[in-house]
């Protein structure tokens, strides 16, 4: 199991679990953050303390602290 902090920018990983409160989880899943999906960590945005992901062709930024709700495993 990996957290976003364990993924290097540019690398892909498979999403295993989406935690956090329900509306956050639901919106993330609707944007494509479904367990089983391969997601690319694009970059960490240091100025705003965010993490940018690419999922289903879209670029989505989450706060680093809130992205801890996502758990990944190595992409097979």
């Amino acid at each position, binding site marked *: 199991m990996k957290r976003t902090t364990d993924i290097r920018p540019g690398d892909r990983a498979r999403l295993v679990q989406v935690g956090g409160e329900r509306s956050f989880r639901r919106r993330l899943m609707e944007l*494509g953050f479904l367990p089983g999906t391969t997601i690319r960590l*694009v970059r960490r945005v240091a100025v*705003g303390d965010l993490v940018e992901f690419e999922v289903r062709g879209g*670029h989505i*930024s989450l*706060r680093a602290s809130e992205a801890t709700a996502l758990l990944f495993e190595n992409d097979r």
Partner: protein
Amino acid sequence: MKAAAAGLAAVVRPPLVAIAGNPNTGKTTLFNRLTKSDRKVANYPGVTVDRHEGKLTLPGGRLIAILDVPGTYSLSARSREEEIAIQSIAGLDGEHVPDLVVLVVDATQLSRNLYMALQILELEVPLVVALNMTDVLAARSEFIDTAVLSRELGVPVVPISALKGRGLDGLERAIELALASPASVRPGPRWIPDTADLREDVDIVVDALPPDWVRGSTSRARALAAWALLSVDDPDELASVPDSVRRVALARRTIAQSDGRQIDAEIIRGRYGWIDARMRSFMPPSTRGLGVSERVDTVLLNPWLGFAVFLFTMSVVFMALFSWSEPGIRAIEVGFGWLTDLVRGVLSPSIARDFVTDALIAGLGSVVVFLPQILLLFFFIGLLEDTGYMARVACIMDRLMRAMGLSGRAFVPMLSGYACAVPAILATRTMERQRDRTLTMMVVPLMTCSARLPVYTLVIAALFPPTMLFGFAPVQSLLLVAMYLFSTLLALVVAAVLSRTMLKARSVPLILELPPYRMPHWPSVVRQMLQKARAFLTEAGSVILVCTIILWGLLSFPKDGAVEARKQVIATEIAALESGSDVDSPAAQAQIEGLHAEAGDLAGESLRSSYAGTLGRAIEPTIEPLGFDWKIGIGLIGAFAAREVFVATMGVVYGIGDADEESATLRDRIRAETRANGEPVYTPLVGLSLMVFFALACQCMSTLAAVRRETKSWGWVVFLFVYMTALAWIASFVVYQGGRLLGFE
């Protein structure tokens, strides 16, 4: 009669076509392209979200109404703002069921955009898909087989480029055909709940739905039941969900959870499963390298270079509001001055003439004068939004703004507040949550706006020596900088306090899309700019006008007959002397000067005995502890029209006629003013107290009018006024009394 009229209205009402889609798909650009005439902006009931509607005549001559549904990633909702999408598309809560939905789909993010297409199909609303950004896709040598996609969805798919205006004829024809045979573009749900458990959940919620939700359609009922299961939460802000539906949906979710099921995930996964199983049939997978936007972002989101670009961009916006608006503002002031002179030349002196010039024209002037800044700010906001840079601003500023309980999007309005609170308050609409908007509106008026500058300039120049501190730092400039820092610091503190008390809200996790950088659609930018200006003129403008008239009444009445008669005599004598042949002789000049001085004294006398004067005296006990006398009290009342009016009002109070902050006479007069015991009224300490008061007090009716427009509530207006005035009083009290305790004068 009534029924007949209603029937007629139903016949006359043109078909309603709703344009829906994810944010950043070019939805608004398409709306602007399609609707060239008869566009109007209203407000969705209960929320401050603009409702844009326009008209279009189709190639076959049929007139249709087009509604721009706010952009959403899905129809599921938690907040009132998100709820608008389902209301507009399913026709709940007073919205008409659209005769057709045009879903704008971003071809570069096809699968995510199709998610919403499935939701709309489930609702059995006729649908046409406008496949946008096909040009971007082609440039990447990718393609979508629209025939296959159309077959799979069961509705027409029309490739377009909203930005370049391509494919619109085809779209209009597709709309025309769809309206002619709606059943053909209403193929029913593509995905249906695929497990017995989920079907049971849906069916039980269906039984609880009210008739106006079901409307005799099983598919629609199931779709709305699935929507309720996905959306209803405890608590949520949804207003259109009846209690019966809410109870059942929550109960089913609890039962599912205890069985180890997640209804949300099952529904969302089901829809994406349908899409993913078919994606390859209409869009071959590609191995694309890094996109242009992603490479640009390695610079623009870079901690050093990106931050430099950010500072530069924001400086340009600020400079525009602060300096570039200046010629426009001056032109408006000159124009209204000219109008005033014109009226004075035509009408003979009377109360009616004063009303026209000093209340009506001055009031209109004080509304119109905001236009340059509003236009400029919304030009830049439109540009930032359209190019995609606004999302990066929100990104970069998120950490700082979050510390105060605000979103990163609050940054641009806060920055604009340094120029003027009014456009800044209008700009809070760029934020999604009403609570974030309200919080920003409550602190923006604390920023040092440009109207405070004349007051600071006058006070600093009159009461503080032009000396250097430590031999190199000019005291006067330092004070001005200190006032800016003071107001900024206080705004941040107030935001932090309010976000933890009155406007306490669960912190909402940030989900921020960084859309690709794009060229702006200029007509859309200009249109938004003009819409904002018009909304301000009509909605906030009327409040400002009424306030100006009331203030004029306070400052001009009651009239003393003898004084008025003497003023007329003086005016006639001055006119006679000035038109006389020996106007340049020293004797005549001295006489004119004497008459002017007397007129000034009389004007001061009138003001001091006006209602405002009486009010100034009445409030004197409350402002005395701040070091202010009743004459300053009159100035404070006059300043309510706009802070800079304080300077001119003080000029009249002291009988020196019209004065500005550079007036040496006014400065001298201020320094010379003494109390009954012979001590000077104005000391540096009083000056400081006065500046602190101006920094914090809500001395601006236009700000209040703008807040009223944006919150749709007088409650927040009252709160803003009361808290700022209280804060101002306390801070000035501390400065003045504290200063005296420390031995300052």
